[in-house]
């Protein structure tokens, strides 16, 4: 980890949109020094953000009902538009 090299992080202040175009390379240690927290501290926190169990999913009944509803929508839109036009 300590010898990891990360490109495009030469500008610390709010420069998180794009890597720098001049190909700047920053050592990981340098990058870490930009932030008050260490990886280890944040890692403990990241471990507490738990993914949802795999079985969390919408019911099959909901999925088919909603799909049908969506397929019927264009007709509803057309009816509303024709009413407005009238």
């Amino acid at each position, binding site marked *: 980890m300590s010898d990891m090299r990360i490109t495009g992080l030469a500008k610390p202040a709010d420069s*998180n949109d794009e890597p720098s175009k001049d190909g700047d390379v920053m050592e990981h240690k340098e990058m870490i020094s930009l932030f008050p927290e260490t990886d280890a501290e944040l890692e403990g926190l990241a471990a507490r953000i738990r993914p949802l169990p795999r079985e969390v999913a919408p019911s099959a009944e909901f999925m088919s009902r909603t799909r049908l509803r969506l397929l019927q929508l264009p007709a509803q839109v057309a009816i509303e538009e024709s009413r407005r036009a009238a």
Partner: protein
Amino acid sequence: MTSVPSRMEATSEDGAQSVPAGKPDRDEERRLVERATARDQGAFAQLYDQHVVRVYRHIYYMVSDAREAEDLTAQTFLKAWEAIDRYKERGAPFVAWLLRISHNLTISYLRSRRDHSELDEGFVDSKRGGNPEESLEQATDERSVREAVLRLRDEQRQVIMLRFVEELDYREVAAMIGKSVPAVRVIQHRALGNLRKLMQQ
């Protein structure tokens, strides 16, 4: 750094630029989106099939209630259909647009519910099982983490949810939000720092 692969670094991710995940799928998706923007309900239904579970899970993380998550998921797709002709492809996959709609709807919903912090106590017990005491402790911890995640700024929350809730790697997250891999790493680092501060409050 510990020797155990961490959740922050365990995934393959070190491309310097964002790389679209699964290019053939993206091309197929682009075609479907083009048809949907021309009000092809069959194409929109296919997009629904592809993304409904992901949208639902994203919402479920925020509301922790199956019925509410289903209502908000349906609303997300209804709103998406209403707005589909105004959709502009800006490099991110279509699901990113859906997730943004779902997030905005869910935040509005949570605000209207007033008790923003009201989360389903049964969530852990019913979904994870295990010892009741541990489950209660875990539920309390999960609740405080989730509340803090929801208070993060938009982009930071999105990265945290995609990385740790949806368990996408850096490259996938970069493709989702239209940023480079190093940018995602920085956003994640800052988000975790802010999360820590929020949880200390």
